[in-house]
């Protein structure tokens, strides 16, 4: 499992699963947003992420060369094979929780795609190029909401402050490479995510300051494991729902 091709496959699946699971989570909001305009915005981000996931799954399926489809990879892999970042699988909670999760992810996503679009793999670069435009919009949207909620009412301030703290534990994973990531970084096959941490912290803190919010990142529990398939207990329930149809009616076209 430690050879180059497997590492590359792992990486594509990690990118795909991350967008897929966050897209799935966001789509749970559909029809239940706090304002119609934001309901639509949440679906919009979900759609972008599902689109991005599709592209990565396709590349992964090609690389794997077993004749599998994007759907096989999304709907027929088990919990221990999923490589999404833990933050993406955490429950939606209230709107502030969803915003905090999205904000942390979006800032990272933009930084990552900025590197990925320089990839020597033209297909990956193309996906990154397209997704970067979308992610930049997502980051703008979630940052604005962090500020609006942080500098809104006393209630909204307290709520988003708590949300912002709650998700800190899951942010380190974005920047801590797994063993297979270390190999890919060493061979220049993926961006060095460890170098993104400082930029991320700076940007996050800029927004938090404007939002009158504070976080002590040193107190993070530094929870990791998603990229190696070691998840929180939330993922199993997501998959049970998401994969139910494909599991129940195998080998059919939809």
């Amino acid at each position, binding site marked *: 499992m430690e050879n180059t091709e497997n590492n590359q496959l792992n990486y594509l699946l990690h990118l795909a699963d991350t967008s897929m699971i966050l897209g799935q989570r966001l789509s*749970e909001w559909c029809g*239940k947003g706090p304002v119609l305009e934001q309901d639509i915005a949440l679906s919009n981000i979900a759609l972008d992420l599902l689109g991005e996931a599709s592209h990565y799954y396709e590349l992964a399926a090609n690389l794997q060369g077993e004749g599998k489809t994007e759907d096989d990879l999304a709907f027929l892999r088990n919990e221990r094979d999923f490589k999404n970042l833990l933050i993406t699988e955490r429950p939606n909670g209230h709107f502030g929780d969803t915003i905090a999760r999205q904000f942390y992810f979006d800032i990272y996503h933009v930084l990552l795609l900025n590197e990925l679009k320089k990839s020597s793999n033209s297909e990956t670069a193309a996906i990154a190029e397209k997704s970067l435009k979308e992610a930049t919009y997502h980051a703008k949207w979630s940052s604005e909401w962090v500020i609006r909620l942080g500098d809104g009412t006393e209630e909204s301030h307290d709520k988003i402050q708590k949300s912002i703290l709650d998700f800190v534990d899951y942010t380190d994973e974005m920047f801590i490479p797994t063993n297979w990531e270390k190999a890919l970084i060493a061979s220049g096959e993926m961006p060095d995510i460890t170098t993104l941490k400082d930029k991320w912290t700076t940007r996050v803190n800029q927004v938090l300051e404007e939002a009158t919010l504070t976080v002590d990142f040193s107190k993070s529990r530094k929870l990791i494991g998603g990229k190696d398939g070691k998840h929180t207990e939330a993922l199993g329930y997501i998959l049970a729902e998401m994969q139910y149809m494909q599991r129940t009616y195998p080998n059919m076209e939809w």
Partner: protein
Amino acid sequence: METTEINLEQHFQNKIDNEIRIEPKDWMPEAYRKTLIRQISQHAHSEIVGMLPEANWITRAPSLKRKKILLAKVQDEGGHGLYLYCAAETLGVTRDETLRDLHSGKAKYSSIFNYPTLTWADMGAVGWLVDGAAILNQVPLCRASYGPYARAMVRICKEESFHQRQGYELMMKLAQGSPEQKEMAQDAFNRWWWPTLMMFGPRDAESGNTEASMNWRIKRFSNDELRQRFVDMTVPQAEYLGLTIPDPELKFNEETGHYEFGEIDWEEFWNVVKGNGMCNKERIDVRRTAFDEGAWVRDAATAYHEKRKQKEQQKKIS
């Protein structure tokens, strides 16, 4: 004064009769305004409540492609709701007011959304049948006498017919699929056929409001006319899919060129309208809960907006 009123009314009706659009700032009879507010709000509510039975399957869609199509569709419905709430606002009623009427049960929405979506095939049936019926109701509204409403409907109808095709295509996949998929399709068709026919409302003989709406060019065809058009259009589509129409009385009348169909279960129709459908309570509960739980978010946005305004004013002053 009395003469002026009569002149205004005359002038208004002349415009209508000459198919000239009424715009927000134009004079209009109070009854016209009220009818429009009621109808547009109901329509907006139907879009918003109508998101729920389909949203129910987004997280369980069987493929990435279908998940994206469904999510985009439900998102479009949210957009339609937006257009329509805006159109209603031009008549002097705020979105919050209309929503309050929805949550209190005072305002209605299309009864079709009080039926549950039980299987994936329902996503096909709803797209094909429910959106199909909606289009027949809505296309004439693109020429409705009230400008903002008519313009909203133009945008909506364009998207709806796209949705309907997607629904039909979903059904086609199932109808051409495995025996389980075929059964699923037929089952969904059986459950949605009659409720869809009910979407056109009571029989003409029992329908109120119709005459005034016709005169005002808000309504252009009667319930029974539209229902017949729907049946004539849909039966061949169903046959093409290999689906059996769940109506033993259905037959084509060579002379009239129309399909004759069995009697609608009007007891069921009125029962659901009165609030006793499977999901009436849940749908409103979900909407109300979303609204109530979102209050702090809306309050925050308002407060932030106010603070910003004040800061900018202070800047100007200093």
